[in-house]
């Protein structure tokens, strides 16, 4: 493998020498990039059109820069990011799979990108049909009959799910107050529970990394509205007791919610609906190749069972068979249905993140049923191969599996031995990985694993890149054996070195000061 990267910062890299300058600091009075069309209507003084007291005295101090400066500024900035097209990004729970450019190309078609959301459905049939087809595909993948694409991301889908649960129970005259979440749950789960007005009840994890069924039985009371689960869970382990878990929750009249962030492990192999889940959210920006964009956009469609369907958000996409008024000629036509007496209503404006739907529809069309199944198969293969490579080396000793079972698409290591025997924390290992040119795995999650390293390579990594990642970790552990301070001081070669995060929150500077 390549020689280890430098462990000194004496000679700053070219990027380290570029000090951060904001676009505001580049501003020079009188410069501009935009030219606007001329005013082709009477140039009445503004005060004659809008009362002066409602007008702004002096405009916002936006930057004054020329177009070439803008292009250079953001091009240079972009290079201060690590990205998926630069190297492996095994960020556990985030499914950083390849983002096909075909998806960007079809999303950019004027018929999509330039389509106004309030366009008359009669004149947006292509968009509505695409959404309808995507709903059907997701329904088949989830094994649940009804889908709403509206939620904007996973956490938004979770909120929708709990509001649906509430509506469902209230419709049956029940007031339930608690929602069960395993201690392995992602932070958005408990946060959503609170936001939906429920009380969180934690369920323990058993020694095999699954839900502690006895603990679940104890806590599954009539007060329980819902159990939120992801399977495989955030340890990357499939909970074999899922059927029993479902019957316990259903037994007390609760709903079962599936956090779809890990669907990439099981597409075409098993389905949440078949496991007994009532409500599922999917992350199109994970499983279905929507680029993450440095923190969005995404989309969090939900799929539900018949009993939940009446409460789904509006508008719904409806398919009307031919011979109906609004069809332009042959085939079926598509519309937006706003009337649904039991609906929880809206979660956002218009029809959801349509641009994301187009990309995910293109992705599903590209792979097809078999391709999706194989994608999950290779995702699981890659994770297990990487694990095997790691266990063949020092990781076996310093970074053991948190739960020693065959993982699926991701696995969680514990850095406890490394901390104890090498005096290096998981954070140190992660930072040193940056010097080796890899994005680190997710760290310190799930919380129940001490010094957790959560690794998800995804199916689009090559065997060679997994080998290199394993070698990098091996080399880092060897460095730690020799001199842990190499890791403590890392990274050395990134655009900036370790940053003082505490200071940023103690006395927050969250905007450019202007004078």
């Amino acid at each position: 493998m390549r020689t280890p990267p430098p462990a000194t910062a004496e000679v700053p890299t070219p990027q380290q020498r570029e000090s951060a300058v904001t676009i505001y600091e580049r501003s020079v009075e009188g410069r501009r990039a935009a030219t606007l069309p001329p005013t082709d209507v009477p140039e009445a003084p503004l005060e004659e059109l809008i009362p002066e007291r409602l007008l702004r005295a002096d405009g916002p101090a936006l930057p004054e820069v020329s177009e070439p400066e803008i292009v250079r500024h953001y091009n240079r900035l972009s290079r201060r990011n690590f990205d998926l097209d630069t190297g492996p990004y095994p960020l556990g729970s985030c499914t950083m799979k390849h983002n096909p450019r075909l998806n960007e190309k079809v999303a950019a078609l004027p018929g999509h990108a330039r389509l106004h959301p309030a366009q008359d459905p009669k004149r947006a049939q292509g968009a509505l049909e695409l959404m309808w087809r995507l709903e059907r595909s997701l329904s088949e993948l989830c094994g649940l009959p009804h889908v709403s694409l509206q939620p904007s991301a996973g956490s938004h889908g979770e909120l929708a799910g709990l509001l649906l649960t509430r509506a469902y129970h209230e419709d049956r005259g029940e007031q339930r107050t608690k929602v069960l979440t395993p201690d392995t749950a992602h932070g958005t789960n408990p946060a959503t529970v609170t936001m939906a007005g429920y009380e969180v009840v934690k369920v323990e994890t058993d020694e095999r990394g699954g839900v502690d069924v006895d603990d679940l039985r104890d806590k599954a009371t009539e007060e329980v509205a819902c159990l939120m689960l992801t399977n495989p869970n955030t340890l990357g382990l499939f909970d074999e007791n899922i059927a029993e878990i479902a019957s316990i929750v259903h037994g007390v009249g609760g709903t079962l919610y599936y956090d779809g962030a890990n669907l990439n492990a099981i597409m075409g192999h098993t389905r949440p609906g078949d496991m007994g889940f009532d409500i599922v959210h999917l992350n199109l920006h994970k499983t279905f190749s929507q680029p993450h964009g440095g923190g969005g956009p995404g989309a969090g469609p939900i799929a539900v069972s018949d009993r939940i369907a009446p409460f789904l958000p509006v508008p719904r996409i409806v398919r009307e068979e031919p011979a109906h008024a609004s069809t332009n000629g042959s085939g079926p036509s598509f519309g937006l249905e706003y009337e649904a007496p039991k609906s929880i209503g809206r979660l956002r404006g218009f029809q959801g993140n349509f641009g994301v739907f187009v990309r995910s529809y293109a992705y599903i069309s590209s792979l097809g049923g078999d391709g999706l199944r194989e994608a999950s198969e290779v995702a699981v293969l890659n994770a297990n191969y990487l694990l095997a490579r790691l266990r063949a080396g020092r990781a076996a000793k310093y970074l053991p599996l948190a739960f020693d079972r065959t993982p699926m698409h991701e696995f969680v290591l514990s850095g406890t031995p490394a901390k104890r025997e090498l005096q290096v924390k998981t954070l140190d290992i992660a930072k040193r990985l940056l010097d080796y040119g890899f994005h680190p795995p997710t760290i310190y999650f799930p919380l129940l694993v001490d010094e957790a390293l959560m690794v998800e390579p995804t199916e689009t990594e090559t065997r060679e890149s997994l080998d290199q990642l394993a070698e990098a970790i091996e080399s880092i552990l060897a460095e730690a054996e020799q001199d842990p301070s190499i890791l403590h001081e890392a990274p050395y070669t990134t655009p900036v070195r370790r940053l003082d995060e505490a200071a940023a929150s103690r006395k927050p500077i969250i905007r450019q000061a202007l004078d």
Partner: protein
Amino acid sequence: MSRYTSATDADRAAMLEAIGVGSTDALFADIPADLRLGRPLELPDGLSEAEVFDQIAALAARNADADSETCFLGAGMYDHYVPALVEAIISRSEFLTPYTPYQPEVSQGGLQVMFEFQTAISELTGLPVANASLYEGPSSIASAAYLALGAGKGRRRLVVSRGVHPHARATLETYARGWDAKVVEVGLRDGLTDPAELENYVDQDVAAIFVSNPNFLGAVEDLEALATVAHNSGALCVASVDPITLGVLRPPGECGVDVAVGEGQALGNRLDFGGPSFGFFAATEEHLRRMPGRIAGETADADGRRGFVLALQTREQHIRREKATHNICTSQALNALAGTIYLAWLGRRGIVELGELLVRRTAYARGTLAAVDGVELLHEAPVAREFAVTLDAPVAAVLDRIGEEGIAAGYPLAREYPEYENGLLVAITERRSKDDIDRLADALAGAIAAARRPQTAEAVA
């Protein structure tokens, strides 16, 4: 091989051997047999890239977009010109493909952009603190309500002007199902929220009032007067604002607004049939630690270099879990980047010039349409970039007819405002020239006349 993967048969064999299992099935052994999907997925077969493109392009061709017709639709999203450099920059892999910046040392690009974005939003709104984006406009109002309920300990009522976007009001209602809070609505008078009437609704139990500027009917509200009413009984004033107008309209921060939110689409984002775009969220200093969403902050690295990180993460779900100020995780970073670039492009002068152009063109359009026989102004209040009229004819029929002439004349109000049965909301952007407006007026005149004819015919009979 499935598109985008690279495991050849040789790879698979070698990998399985390294793992020590005979087949990939063994890796799925934990899935109980009776839960396995024993059949292929009922989805079409995978297609070549050319086929996928052709198929989706054929769907796209069945939409009438703002390139193929003259679009006066607004109602929260607007056909502003997006300069080419925006798409060029946001399509760079380095911005398009990374995750949320959890490793700041290799995410300085995205983090600095957030910092610049927060600065821009703070400047636009005249409020000191802003976050790095929320999903979109309407749900941002609900997020502001969540903050207000937290801040106004015990206060349980939310008073919403009917001038707030109907989608936002509906979203607030939906979110409120989870809170034991009551949403009450205050109506409009002459297109505006009436401070006097508002007063009847605001008391010690009100956590916040919610207004929009301009409001959904295009009217420019007197934010200061409305904020005063709220403050008089200790409630917060939350305003949803249209960022494009903030070059000319008095910013919420100057009017005493506590929290300003809004829809960011108009700032360099595509129409995209409604999303993805971004929501923004700005507030007074005191609400900083209750704010939802990511916030980038400035700091220094081990060598003292300036750098940026995610600040105040203890507000967030991944740290605080059930005690988080909000559940949001993935937001709209790329769309916020587009907004940041757009605002740098527009610049200090451009945002004012654009605002002035819109106000003048809107005034011209309003006057020109009002002069059409069968068109009346729905209200006389001042407007900035959108205005409402009532047609003396069935609006649906009129829109269909005008649609055939390649014009989307506007947004019909009836579904969300039954009180305006033939109301029409008309939006103006810098892309709608005087000639376009004149064409619209002629088309309206013709369509209204045509729509009336049958009626008169009946009258005669």
